[in-house]
Every structure is written in structure tokens, then in C-alpha cells.
């Protein structure tokens, strides 16, 4: 490495230098002679050409950092080799699953005034946008129908492309946006879609489908009189699990549960907490308010 410190044309006899630098030659005289030569070289450089000297240092650091960058890249490359492209090594941090809702603009307060369409159109647009992938014809075209009530386990090579089960928009019934393209926002009975976070290989409920319930988070319970759940009483069917990762499970669409808030106190902020219920689901951790549950506020103006 050291002789690379000197610009090529200044090192006339690399082999000779090698001997000196590597220090295998026990001949001290020669080594001293060499070090003198190096010394002279360096002095010549410093005195006659300060820029060359600065260049020498820059060159040294260039080489050092290139070496480090190379070694780092090599290590990262090695690291990537040990990883499977299909399944992460560990999944203990991402499970149990978290929960998210749609529409999602920013934050978890869904506030609109029925009489002013401009206040709810963004929500409706967000829902439509999100549900595009669930259009019945797209689902029918890309995904297969699966037997309900059991996990859709696909054996075979890990690298084999996995089939995904159909989740049609129409299954959301009143919240599908087909009959009512405003998802009930225009009538003050908004739909909210609830989605469980995807985790590779995770089988929620251990055989029993996970269900959803919603309640007032705190305050007057009469503010939330009725909620309708679609599909199937607000459960995530087992056939949508397990998830095999985005590389092989290309067309996978997360199953959804639509919450249809048909009777919510108007003109007030109503904090609602929806929880997943099922075996293996954790929904009461103080630090993580999105783990197995979600809290949002409805504020519907009339």
C-alpha cells in the first residue's frame, strides 16, 4: 500500500522499494538506503512542490478510503448473500400486526360537513383510489378464488410465484362505493376501511378468523349507536393468509374490513377505537397505539 503513496513516475524501481517496505530483506544498509531515498523524495516533494505534497496526502486518503469503501461494500455484499430474498431473517419486530385505516389523508381525525361536499370529497377520492386494486374485474383477472375458512398454504419452492385470493370490492357491500360512490359521506354515514398490516408467514388467529369491534375510546358511549361491518361481520378470512412477500406474492391484496358508521353523534368529535380480536393479537400495548388497534376521531357536521 505504501508505495502507492508516491505518484507512479516517481517510483522508478517498485521491486526494490517492495523489498525495503515489506522488510523481508534483513539487510539494514539497503533498507536505510531505501528509507533515505524515500526521505529525499519526500523532501524534494515538500520543498520543491508543496502541492505535490498535499497531493501525496490526498492520494493516501483516496487509497485508504477506497480500500475502506471496498471492504464495506464487500461486507454488505456478504451480508446480502446471507439474506433470503423472500423472507426476512427475523420477523419478531414486525409482529404482531398493526392496524391502519383508509381514507388516510393526514392524521386520524376524519372531519367533514355533509352539506359541504368539498370537505369530504378528498376522503372519497382517497377511498376510490385505494379500492382501485380491488375492482372486481381486476381481482377476477389476476387472482383466484379460494376456499374460505382455511389458510391458503402454498407449498413448493420458495421462489415459485404465489397465487393470491380474490378480495372483490363488491364484498364490501354498502362500503364498496359501487352503489354509493360517496361511501356514505354525503349522508353523514361514512365508511372507513380497516386494514391489518402484512407480515410474511403470519397466520392471524391461529385457525379462527380475526374479528374487528369498535367502541368509543373514552366519553359518552351513546355517541356511537351502531356500526355495520362488511364483509362477514367484520372478520378477516383465513384464506388471505399467510402472506408470502412482495417478490413472489405479487398480486396480493390485503383483505379489508369496512366499518360503516350508520349512527354517530353529529357535530361533535367522537373518538373511536377499533380493535382486532383473535388469538395471538395484541391490542393493549400503551406505547404502540396502532398495534392490533387504531384510534381515530369522527367529526361529522350536518
Amino acid at each position, binding site marked *: 500500500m*505504501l508505495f502507492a*503513496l508516491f505518484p507512479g513516475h516517481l517510483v522508478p524501481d517498485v521491486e526494490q522499494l517492495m523489498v525495503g*517496505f515489506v*522488510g523481508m530483506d534483513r539487510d539494514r544498509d539497503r*533498507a536505510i538506503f531505501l*528509507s533515505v531515498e*524515500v*526521505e529525499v*523524495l*519526500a523532501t524534494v516533494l515538500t520543498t520543491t512542490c508543496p502541492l505535490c505534497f498535499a497531493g*501525496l*496526502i490526498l492520494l*493516501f*486518503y483516496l487509497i*485508504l*478510503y477506497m480500500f*475502506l469503501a471496498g*471492504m*464495506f461494500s464487500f*461486507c*454488505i455484499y456478504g*451480508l*446480502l448473500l446471507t*439474506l433470503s430474498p*423472500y*423472507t*426476512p*431473517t*427475523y*420477523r419478531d*419486530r*414486525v409482529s404482531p*400486526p*398493526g*392496524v*391502519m385505516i383508509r381514507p*388516510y389523508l*393526514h*392524521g*386520524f381525525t376524519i372531519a367533514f360537513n355533509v352539506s359541504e361536499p368539498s370537505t369530504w370529497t378528498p376522503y372519497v377520492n382517497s377511498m376510490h383510489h385505494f379500492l382501485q386494486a380491488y375492482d372486481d374485474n381486476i381481482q377476477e383477472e389476476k387472482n383466484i378464488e379460494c376456499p374460505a375458512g382455511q389458510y391458503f398454504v402454498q407449498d413448493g419452492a420458495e421462489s415459485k410465484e404465489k397465487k393470491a385470493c380474490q378480495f372483490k370490492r363488491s364484498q364490501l357491500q354498502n362500503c364498496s362505493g359501487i352503489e354509493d360512490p360517496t361511501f356514505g359521506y354525503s349522508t353523514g354515514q361514512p365508511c372507513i376501511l380497516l*386494514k391489518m*398490516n*402484512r*407480515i*410474511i408467514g403470519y397466520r392471524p388467529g391461529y385457525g379462527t378468523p380475526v374479528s374487528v369491534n369498535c367502541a368509543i375510546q373514552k366519553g359518552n358511549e351513546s355517541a356511537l349507536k351502531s356500526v355495520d361491518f362488511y364483509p362477514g361481520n367484520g372478520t378477516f378470512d383465513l384464506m388471505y393468509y399467510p*402472506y408470502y*412477500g*412482495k*417478490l413472489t*406474492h405479487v398480486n*396480493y391484496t390485503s383483505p379489508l374490513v369496512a366499518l360503516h358508521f350508520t349512527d354517530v353523534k353529529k357535530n361533535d368529535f367522537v373518538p373511536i377505537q377499533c380493535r382486532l380480536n383473535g388469538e395471538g393479537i395484541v391490542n393493549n*400495548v400503551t*406505547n*404502540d*397505539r*396502532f*398495534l392490533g388497534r*387504531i384510534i381515530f376521531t369522527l367529526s361529522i357536521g350536518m
Partner: protein
Amino acid sequence: GLTSARAAEILARDGPNALTPPKSTPEIIKFLKQMVGGFSILLWVGALLCWIAFGIQIAQGVASAFDNLYLGVVLALVVILTGIFAYYQEAKSTNIMASFSKMIPQQALVIRDGEKKEVPAEQLVVGDMVEIKGGDRIPADIRLIFAQGCKVDNSSLTGESEPQSRSCDFTHENPLETKNIAFYSTTCLEASPFLPGTATGMVINTGDHTIIGRIASLASGVGNEKTPIAIEIEHFVHIVAGVAVSIGVLFFIIAVSMKYKVLDSIIFLIGIIVANVPEGLLATVTVSLSLTAKRMAKKNCLVKNLEAVETLGSTSIICSDKTGTLTQNRMTVAHLWFDDQIYSADTSEEQTTQSFDQSSQSWAALSKIVTLCNRAEFKPGQENVPIMKRVVVGDASETALLKFAEVILGDVMGIRKRNRKLAEIPFNSTNKFQLSIHETEDPNDKRFLLVMKGAPERILERCSTIMINGEEQPLDRERAEAFQTAYMELGGLGERVLGFCHLYLPEDEFPDTYPFDTDSMNFPTSNLCFVGLLSMIDPPRSTVPDAVSKCRSAGIKVIMVTGDHPITAKAIAKSVGIISANSETVEDIAKRLNIPVEQVNKQDARAAVINGMELKDMTTEQLDEILINHSEIVFARTSPQQKLIIVEGCQRQDAVVAVTGDGVNDSPALKKADIGIAMGIAGSDAAKNAADMILLDDNFASIVTGVEEGRLIFDNLKKTIAYTLTKNIAELCPFLIYIIASIPLPIGTITILFIDLGTDIIPSVALAYEKAESDIMNRRPRHKKKDRLVNEQLAVYSYLQIGILQSVGAFLAYFTVYAEQGWLPNTLLGLRVSWEDDYYNDIEDSYGQEWTRYQRTYLQWSGYTAFFVSITIQQVADLIIRKTRRNSLFQQGLLRNKVIWVGIFSQIAIALILCYGLGSVTALNFTPLRVQYWFVAMPYAILIWVYDEIRKLFIRQYPGSWWDKNMYY
């Protein structure tokens, strides 16, 4: 005397008769100084920024606002705690001194209201009449009105080692010279056991108005300059603070121009500051210095000011006293001359026998004279004390002779009893001899023995014969010349020579009952028989020549400054090696070449002996010329005031000057010197107060061991700082990459503090225990301005080489943790904004899994922990490479410094506790880490070690080369 009422009045007017202690800084100021010194300001700024960020965020309703509040509090706590620690350390070393200055309150016998009264010396006032007896300390400046056999020891004031007699006669206009004034804090001596000196005098000055008081205030007027290590640490703080501020500001600007919010940019700035400041380092330096101070105290160097530990190490000139420091401070018989031959006596500290040839009859005669013609006596009750340590009543020469005789003959007092003394003429300065007449112990020999000693030429004048091999022979010309040669030779050695002669008085002329009368001298005092010469010197301490040669090889110039005669000074200087055997002074060359002194080329003379009188007439340029041109210098017959001039001269040569001193008059020089060394035994309180260091055994050799320790700590502090600075880059890089590449934050600010103040503290102190790499006493003292504690090479090597290496290793661990959880490196780039979005709870990772915010945060903490663990692991390697700067680890050995191992184990233990023990405490941001992540950075740790071994190999192989110049710190 005064009346009590009048005395009280004057006391109220003049104040108590005590020296005002030097003004000390109030404790609270000292404390506050610790709070704002060093890096504290930078950390206060960090804390303040934290609170500002907290204020803004709380107003915006950001959930994580309290993190900033806590961080601010933690930073403030760090400053306050390290401040308290530094304050405590300083207070502790000051306390050592406080015990020194405590003195037993002195009493004085004063005549008030016509009665003798004992009052505390503090209450003396001008006009009081005081009585003093032998052994007392003089309680104030007094004018004597009655004195009897009173001698005072003025050595602490004027440097004269001979006691001065005092009488009530006015003899000189200069108050310092006149005999009728005795000075505050000097001691009245017991002139002889038979005649205790007494004196009565009137107080003329009290307290700060006394001569001593004036000198003391002069000393406090001499400015206290910054110690070299303080300058070095300041320099280092400037470098680090400069780096911190410039990187901070640079990245603040970068962040703002990258469209980050100003508030976020401020938070980045805090992170950069915290990462850059080695919070624990100043405390570590203090601990290292105090460890060395403790080690030095064991070697009899008591350091008052911690920083002086290192100052001693950078010393390039030592101005040493002669008496007591280089020498044993007691006269000892060094040579004898009898039978026409010079014999050497043993002058070591622990002599128990003398080995020269004692078979001659002449020696028997000589020893009898030495024993009998001597008034000194051992104080009773010291039978079990070694002879050399016994206390003697009598003057220095007589003491030397008494001890010499006791060593050889034993029971001198018994011999004297058996040879009863009949008459005696004590020594006086007019006749310059001492004589006594004794009965002999041989009952058959009825003759009386007359013994005489004195100045050799005077003794010889009175002799007509000389004893050779026990036979009296006529003192012819030839014999007289032999005597002259011997006398000159011994005198040339700087020794005090005494001649001895005797005469057996014929029985018929002096019968049993002969009435000897010393006034009429009715006995012969001429035509005596010359027996021999004895010469005495205050011999060098046996350890000193070795110490001086050590100094010489360490490139330290030793200058002797003494009040003694030039010849004696030169002789001692030669015997301890301050003037080496083959060096010549200008005078020597002149004598050898037989040319006048003026014609000698001054450059030829290595040595110089400068007389105080010459020094007085010298200009500063002339003094500088001497200090530059001569490497071996002795200043003789100097007054303590001239010491200050010499010190200033040395400092003009850019030298770090150590000065030894014991007298009050030395205190300005002690203060002026870069390091003042007071004598623990002989030193006065004023000297001890002015000094930075106290030499408990008064031994010059102890200074040299101190120098060694001081040099070692400088080297080791370099290692400590290099060790500490390295990981700052590994702490800083995460922030920079976080800002530039927008990856999740690799290491948190709190975690950084756990490295700086947790895992790294014990290892960096452990480096203070490192043994020297080579003989540090074989190199030149460091140059104040060129050999910096933190030089460019150290900073560059730590920051840009090992530091970067460490960062790379830690980043590998970081990426590994994220990748194995599903976040591949390419996904992480640019992820920061969504990653930190509190509302975004279903971010997809590289595998399509969705993460909540808290799940991500927890992973981020795992990343912190992995980064932390990797830095810790690589710091172990860093610690091992910092053991040496030049030698291979194999040369230094891994086991010689066991404290290093304590450091390594503590480091790993603390990391384990933080990771697994406190992993569940969310506020600390640690998580229990999978075991394998501890080993991810291991290859980089090994690379650090191998790289450094290669660096050291090239440094050793090619000294002076480009590599050596750029890589050796």
C-alpha cells in the same frame, strides 16, 4: 514595656502581627469557573438549544417534544456533575496544602505593664519589649537592646547558611547587615550548650511590614503563569470545539438548504455538538493527573497543583540549590593527610566504618587530637541512634570531627573523660586555632598532652617537627613543601582544611599541679609537632550523581545556584557531574594555555562558574549569552534575589524552568519559575506556599523521578486523548449520514452520552497506568511550542483514519440489524421522512411487510444498540492500539498494564448491563440485542489493530520518512 491599653490601641491600628495569607479566590467563583471552563460552554449551548426546541415543539403539539427536554436536562447534568468532580479534585489537592500551612500558634515573652507575660505572637505590637532565648523563633522584626551569645540563623532570609551573631551594636546602615536587628521568622540559635543565647529587643515592625512580610507580598505580586499542560488542554479544547462548531454550522446550513425545517436542523446541531464533545475527557485527564500525583507523592514529590505534575515532565532547566538538595547538608570529613599521604574517607550517608589504613602511629596521634581538641558533644540519650543521625551541640566542623571520631574510635565521650581536660582556648577569628591541654589516660605517663587544631598555615607556623609514621622528624623545607602541596590539593577540592598538632609537655617542667592559665598562656604554643591535615566538605548525596547524569541524558540542563564559595561550588558540581569530568571553564582553559582569560574563545568552554558579583554587573544580554553558550553552569556566591534573575534569564530561552528553594527569599523565584520546588524538611512556609511542588526528602534525585513521571503522564495523556477522540467520529458520522442520506438515525444522543461517560471512562483512565515505551529519560524535553499534546497527526490519525474505520464497522452492524429485520440498505436511503412520520403506521419494508411507527422506533433503538455495541467492541481494539505509539504491541506486552484489562472488562460489562439489563427501560433507548450482532464489527476491530501495527512498523523501520512525519502522533 508598653501598657496593655497602649498595646491594644496599636494593635487596633496596625492589625495583628501575622502575614496576610495570599488572597484566595472565593469558593463559589472557583466552582463557577469549573462550570464554564473547557467544553462546558458548548454543552450549555447544546442544552439551551434542546430547551428551545422543546419549547417550539410543545407549542406545535409534537408528541416527542419531551425527549428534547430530557436531553437538555441530561446535558446540563453532565456539565454540572463534571464541574463538581473537577472542583472536588482541585479542592482535595488544595487541602493537602492547608495542612502544611497550619502552624502551632507561636508564643512570645513580652514585657507589658512592667511584667513578663506570655502572649500569642500575633498580638505583638510595635514598641513591645520581647525576650528571646536560644531555640526560639523571632516573633517580629526587633531591634536588640541586650544580647548575650545570641546567634541567629538567617538562612531562610538571606541564604547565608552560617549563623550570624547578634549584639546590640549598630554596625551597618543597611538593616539587613547591621548586627542589632533580628528578623521575624528567623531562629535564635543555642550558641553552645553551656551558654544559651538570650536577647531582649524592641519590636520595630510587625506583620506585613516586616522584611519577611514584604518579601511575601513581593512573591504574590509575581504573576502566576498558566502551566504548560493547561495551555495544552486549552489548545486541545479549541481544536475540538472548533471542529464541533464548524461541522455543526456547516451541516446546519446544509440541512437548511436541503429544505429541512429549521427546528430539525437545530436538533441535528445538538446531535453534532454532543457527538463531537468528549464529555468525559476532562474528568479523565484530572483523574490521570491525580493518579500520577499520588504516585509522585510516594516518591517524595508532593504536588500542590495537579497540573504541575506534567510541568515537571516538560522541564528543560533545573536550577538547583546546592546545600541540602545536592548535598547532605552536613560537614563530613572527606580527606586526611598524614605520613605524607592523602587518604580518602567515606562520605556516604550511612557510614559505619572507615576503611583507610589506620595502622600508622601517626593516625593514633591524629585521632587523639581530633577527639580531644573538640568542644562538640552528642546530646544525651541517643545511644541507639545511628551515629550519623545523632544530634550534636556544636558548630558544623566540630560536629563532623566528633562523628568522624565516634565512627572510628567509638565512645568519644569516654575517651575525653579518661583524658581529663585541664585548660582550653576556644577558637576565635584572631588567632585561628583552638587548643586544649589534657591528662593522658596512661596512668604511667605523667606528661600533659597539648593538642591544637586550626587553619593549617597557622598551625604549621607553630610547629618545628612533623610526625611521620609515628616518629617526630624535623620539619624541613621538603616536608613543608609536601604540606603545601597537600593543602593546596585539598583546598582545590573545595574542602575546608584543618591542621592538627600536639605536644607532650615535659613532666619536669609541667608537674601534676601545674596551674595552666589560658590568659597568660603559661605553656608553649610553638615548636609543636605537626601531625596531619583533615579536610571537610558537605558531601553530595550519594544518589545525586546518578540523578544528574539521568538529567543530562534526558536533555535537562542542571544549573547549580548557591551562596557558597566558587571553589567549593565547582568542586561539588564536579563531584555530582553538573560539570562533567572533561569540561573546562574559561578560567581553566586560560590556565592550561597560559593566556589571559580575555583571549579565550568562550565557545570552547562548556562549563562556567559565575560569581554573584559578576552577575550583579551583567546586562541581560550577557546573561543570555552565558546561558546559551555554556551547557554546564554554576552560579556561586549568589543571593536569593539573583535567583529570580537567573530564572528569568532561563525563561527567556523558552525553557521550562524548575527551581528549588527553601528560604523565604526564594519565594519570588519559586513563583516565577514554571515549577517551583520547595524543600519539605528545610523549607520555610513562605517557600512552600509559593512553590508548586514540595520535595519531602529534600533530595535532588526525587526531582528526577518526578520528571520521569511527568513525562510519562504527558505521553499517556496523548494516548488517552487519541483514544477518546477516535470514537467521536464514529458518533458524528451517523448524524452526518442521517442528514445527507436520510436514513433512520443510527445512534441517539443519549446513547452517545453512555459511551462518552459510561463505557469509555475506565479504559481511558487505564491508559494513565501504561508503562513507558522506551527510556523516556533518554530523549530531549518536549518543546513548549512544537511538541503539542494534541498535534495535527494525532487529530488526523484519530479522526480521519481510525475514527472512519470505526464508523464503517459500526455502520455495518447497523445495516445488518436493519437488513435482517427486512429493511435492506437501499430501502433505507431517503426513508427518513416517512420513517419518522408518527401517522404513517403501515410503511412497507423491502419484503412488503408493514410496520407501525412504534415497531420502527423499537427497531431504531436496536440499531442504536448495535451501533453502540460495535463502537464499544472497536474501542477495545482502539484501547489496545493506544497502548503504544511506536512500539509493537508484542514489544510492549499485553500483561504489563493490568489496569487496561480492568478497563476492557468494565467496558464490556457496562455494555452488557446497558444492553440486557436496562434494555427494557425505554427512556434509555437500549434494547436486548441478538448475540451475533456483538461480533459484526469484530473484523473491523481486528483491522484497526493490524492497520496500527503496520503504521508502527513503518514508523520504526523508516524514522524521519514521510510516513513517520505524518503518522506518528
